[in-house]
């Protein structure tokens, strides 16, 4: 244990003397997340302001109907265009934002009769402005129909309020905490996997395959230190970096997302109770130590950092795909055999942790047992590999 701590201390000392690496591991994620969310938030605000100030250009063959629609559109500026040579081209080029064609003249009533021809709406989905005015016009057309019906009902002596019936009241029983949890359950496992792996790639392979490549590993191996101590030191080092990077990134993500983005679901902090934080922390530790053990084994096996990265990418991609699958609201909400699959069980447990009413104790227990058992096997394998010339001297030199 003493030797493990000595090696661990040396690894951290070496890392902290390299200011560029420290910056890229610990500071850059914060800058990136804050920067990304600031940029997205600003762009969304600008887009909203732009839409408010936009004058929508609509081509129509019946300006009279469009003028009727305009009367109800208080906040929307519309310019009626009466001639276009080619409607599709005009829409694509942004010369107009919408085309509205009435086949049977300028009386709106005709379009409410049985077997009446359709009102043709031409839009261009590549433009937000076109999409926006399309939904406004559709809404206004329905409004006009409702007004027509109201007039008819009044004329026939029927209370037009019938059109407002039945009154529907929707109650979302999900608490603010649960709404936030549902969002976290989607995004958190995916983000954690990305950060637990990505820092391993740089730091983890540098301390294993990188040391072989640079011919610095032999000095350590020719000393009296046990191979198990070396394996544990490397694994703990990578794990600590993984957990720190993932934590910093998640905090930066949460701050960036909650402070700089509009319309977020619920108060995210509500989802973090002492129980969820404990389970989250232990789950992340068990995943991080397992990823570190995988990285060490692959790093010792590979001839170079490049080769190690190429061996690990398929595992990363598979886990990432499962992470993306976990973003579906209903995915992994029930207990399945995935609890026995290392790493994947982490995604499932975290998803359940935030999206189901009870704590996922079965999945959490299996996660700890399976991940730690596989890690122990990988540590034994790594120490045997450190003792095996086939791997230690397997380099490209």
């Amino acid at each position, binding site marked *: 244990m*003493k030797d493990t701590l*000595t090696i661990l201390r*040396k690894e951290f000392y070496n890392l902290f003397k390299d200011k560029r690496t420290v910056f890229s591991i610990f500071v850059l994620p914060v800058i990136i997340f804050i920067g990304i969310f600031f940029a997205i938030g600003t762009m969304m605000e600008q887009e909203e302001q732009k839409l408010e100030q936009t004058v929508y250009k609509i081509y129509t063959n019946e300006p009279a109907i469009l003028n009727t629609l305009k009367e109800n559109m208080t906040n929307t500026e519309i310019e009626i265009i009466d001639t276009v040579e080619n409607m599709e081209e005009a829409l694509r080029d942004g010369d107009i934002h919408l085309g509205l064609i009435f086949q049977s003249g300028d009386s709106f009533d005709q379009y409410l009769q049985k077997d009446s021809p359709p009102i043709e709406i031409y839009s261009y989905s590549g433009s937000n402005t076109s999409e926006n005015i399309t939904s406004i016009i559709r809404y206004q057309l329905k409004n006009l129909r409702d007004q027509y019906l109201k007039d008819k009902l009044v004329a026939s002596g029927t209370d037009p309020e019938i059109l407002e019936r039945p009154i529907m009241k929707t109650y979302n029983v999900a608490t603010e905490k649960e709404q936030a949890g549902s969002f976290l359950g989607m995004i958190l496992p995916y983000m954690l996997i990305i950060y637990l792996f990505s820092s391993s790639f740089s730091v983890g392979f540098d301390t294993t395959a990188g040391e072989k490549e*640079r011919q*610095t590993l*032999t*000095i350590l191996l*020719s000393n*009296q*230190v046990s191979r198990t101590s070396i394996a544990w030191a490397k694994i703990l080092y990578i794990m600590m970096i993984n957990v720190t990077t993932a934590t910093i990134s998640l905090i930066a993500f949460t701050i960036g997302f909650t402070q700089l983005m509009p319309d977020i679901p619920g108060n995210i902090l509500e989802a973090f109770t002492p129980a969820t934080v404990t389970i989250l922390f232990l789950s992340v530790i068990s995943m991080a130590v397992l990823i570190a053990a995988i990285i060490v084994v692959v790093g010792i096996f590979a001839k170079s950092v490049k080769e190690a990265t190429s061996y690990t990418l398929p595992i990363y991609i598979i886990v990432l795909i499962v992470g993306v699958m976990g973003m579906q609201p209903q995915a992994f909400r029930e207990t399945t055999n995935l609890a026995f699959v290392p790493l994947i069980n982490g995604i499932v447990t975290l998803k359940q942790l935030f999206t189901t009413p009870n704590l996922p104790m079965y999945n959490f227990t299996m996660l700890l047992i399976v991940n730690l058992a596989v890690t122990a096997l990988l540590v034994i394998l790594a120490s045997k590999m450190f003792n095996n010339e086939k791997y230690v001297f397997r380099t490209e030199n």
Partner: protein
Amino acid sequence: MIEFKNVDKSFKAKKTVVKALDQCSFKVNKGEIFGLLGPNGAGKTTSLRILSTLIKPSGGEVSVGNLNPVKDARAIRKKLGFLSSDMNLSGNLSARDLLTFFGRLNHIPETTLEKRIEGLSTYLEIKKFMDRNVSTYSTGMKQKTLIAIALIHEPEILIFDEPTNGLDIITSRLVLEYLKDLQNQGKTIILSTHIMTVAQKMCEHIVIIDRGRIKADGTLNEILEETGKDDLEDAFFDYLEVEDK
């Protein structure tokens, strides 16, 4: 005493098996400078890696002071200081950081360690640069630092594989002087080299190895006498030529 008895070592290379050592036997006596000579690919580094427990023999018996390199690897490494031509220094640490690290790994008490670092840095003349990052070192500075690392735990046996490789003539001479000095301190030194003048000057006991087989084993005089040559380089070629004929 160190003993190699009928040692074999084979490596698998894709579909072929390369025999690096073939029934090699030699003994190294306590306190001597032992020279293992041979051309590139002769089996020198393989022999030294077996002695330093980095690799295992495929057959035969090896003992280092009555210890078995396979069973008692850690106990042997405690007695050994190993310097190989395929070792390098890199990273952000200084010579002082590395010496402290390896000293701690060898469980040297902190006060003793400080004294040893002070002593070694004076002895090997590395004081001037020992607080600088090793990535800024010249080849000679790195080699001196590696020697200091090999000596930090005061090993009884020193295994130096091509210690003058890549060094300029002045640093080479300094390194060889250190080796002589270490012998005078009672250390056993196993030196591998393909530079005959170095071996002639340094080694009391010489073994010539080629293509994994021992070609000669004796003192410098015995080897010169056996071949009837005046210097070791001619004798060395004589042994290689005998094999070629």
